[in-house]
């Protein structure tokens, strides 16, 4: 790795991973505790009374959704807090005055956030294995979904951080947009249970496609076609990447 841009990319990624590991009690432990409680209460206690969902036990059904939920929330949270923290503490200037092109800055932060998403996903999947037998009929689709889902929400978190002027602005999007979309994205139920209007609305929710693609990877079952799910995810990656790079080029919220 001798090209300056690759060295710079690796430097930002390493710094992000170091940060994640340094504050592991804030980055890795909370999702593990929250998801353990979800598995215990929804999957085990309540799930045993719900019965089957889409032909699977309720515990089996919610595992893919909960893993994806953890991946999305942590990817988003990592980049929004880290990038906004760098803006707030002004050490973002270290990067802005450097010769790094914008794609390296964006790529480094996204790589760090995706790695946290992946790490949390592995932890949550490991916890799920304590409650049920996790199969992996489509490992490539499973991995591709996690990487694409984490990338999309890393980019979304980056855009949030660029516009944020105070820490409250970083919390608004997860509270009022991300959490409702996640809960209404088919994590806890099959879209077949919904009335027609609610089912139609759910199809406008990008998280719905990620959860279903991941569910297909683990359970070989999905409410949507994989072509549509991956087409949409790739589309989001392209659009959000282009917007993030444009924001960096214009210096929105970064250069005066």
């Amino acid at each position, binding site marked *: 790795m001798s090209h300056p841009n690759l*060295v710079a990319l690796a430097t930002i990624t390493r710094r992000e991973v170091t940060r994640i590991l340094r504050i592991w009690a804030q980055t890795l432990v909370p999702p593990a505790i929250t998801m353990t409680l979800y598995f215990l209460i929804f999957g085990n206690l309540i799930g045993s009374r719900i019965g089957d969902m889409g032909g699977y036990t309720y515990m089996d059904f919610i595992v893919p959704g909960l893993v994806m939920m953890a991946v999305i929330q942590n990817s988003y949270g990592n980049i929004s807090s880290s990038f906004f923290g760098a803006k707030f*503490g002004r050490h973002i200037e*270290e990067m802005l*005055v*450097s*010769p*790094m092109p914008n794609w390296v800055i964006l790529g480094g932060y996204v790589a760090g956030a995706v790695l946290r998403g992946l790490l949390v996903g592995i932890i949550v999947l490991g916890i799920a294995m304590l409650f049920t037998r996790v199969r992996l009929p489509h490992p490539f689709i499973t991995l591709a979904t996690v990487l694409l889902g984490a990338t999309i929400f890393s980019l979304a978190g980056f855009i949030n951080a660029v516009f944020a002027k105070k820490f409250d602005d970083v919390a608004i999007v997860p509270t009022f947009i991300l959490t409702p979309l996640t809960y209404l994205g088919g994590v806890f139920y099959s879209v077949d249970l919904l009335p027609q209007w609610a089912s139609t609305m759910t199809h406008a929710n990008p998280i719905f496609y990620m959860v279903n693609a991941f569910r297909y990877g683990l359970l070989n079952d999905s409410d949507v076609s994989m072509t549509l799910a991956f087409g949409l995810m790739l589309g989001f990656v392209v659009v959000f990447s282009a917007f993030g790079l444009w924001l960096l080029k214009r*210096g929105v919220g970064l250069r*005066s």
Partner: protein
Amino acid sequence: MNPIPALEIRELRKVYATGVEALKGVSLSVQPGDFFALLGPNGAGKSTLIGIVSSLVNASSGSVQVFGVDIAKNREAAMRLLGLVPQEVNFNFFEKPFDILCNYAGFYGVARAEAKRRAEEELRRAQLWEKAFTTARTLSGGMKRRLMIARAMMTQPRLLILDEPTAGVDIEIRRGMWRILREVNAAGTTVILTTHYLEEAESLCRNLAIIDRGEIIENGPMKTLLSKLDVEGFLLDIDGELPAQLPHIEGIALHAEDRHTLDLEMPRAMHLNQIFAQLDEAGIRVRSMRTKTNRLEELFVRLTGSKEAA
């Protein structure tokens, strides 16, 4: 043929979104190897100028070249030549100085092994090696400023810009920083310094520009500019008390600072002996004397003050 300037600024303008015109067509040239002072009162436009050169601020119009490389046309190449020590501390307080330096070099594409070698060298030079692996927030104010100089030197810049690097540090640390900056300059790096300590500029810099209200009002060699200062001020400590009526001495201004101290302002061409002789005749005996103001400070106040009066 003249060498390519280390920094060439032409007709640089900056109007902020608020409508404030921070720079009104600034042109400036700094030669390679120079130790250059950029002086000006608060709000004069110094930080905006440095912000544009370091690409943190977008210029409204005009051009900036670093060693002939236009920052608008080839920002990446220009930034590789530049090191910046900003006015405000801007490293991550939760990281360790060693990591801060290695990461900074990494942003410029310096491989990790080489970055580690340079980090140790720069931390030792800044007398911070014993703090290399402690959290940066525990460093004192002076240490933080030295760390920012060490960080800027990690990329071996050809042009080093320091925005008030010694603000708020005690004189001992300041002199230590001067030593480092002299070494850096002696090794061939062009240094541009803004400071509020005018004796610092007078001691370190060979050339200077004074900026006020977004315009360069004076620019040239330190010696030439100081020679423009045609008057000097002294405070004379008197034996006993001053008489109620001070003597009139042609060409000089005298007034009593207090009952034992005389404030004297005289043309540089005049000899002190003449003045002492006339004071002696008036029964005023001078026990000791001191310079009233720093020479550069006097020039600075005259230039920026006269503009205000106008």
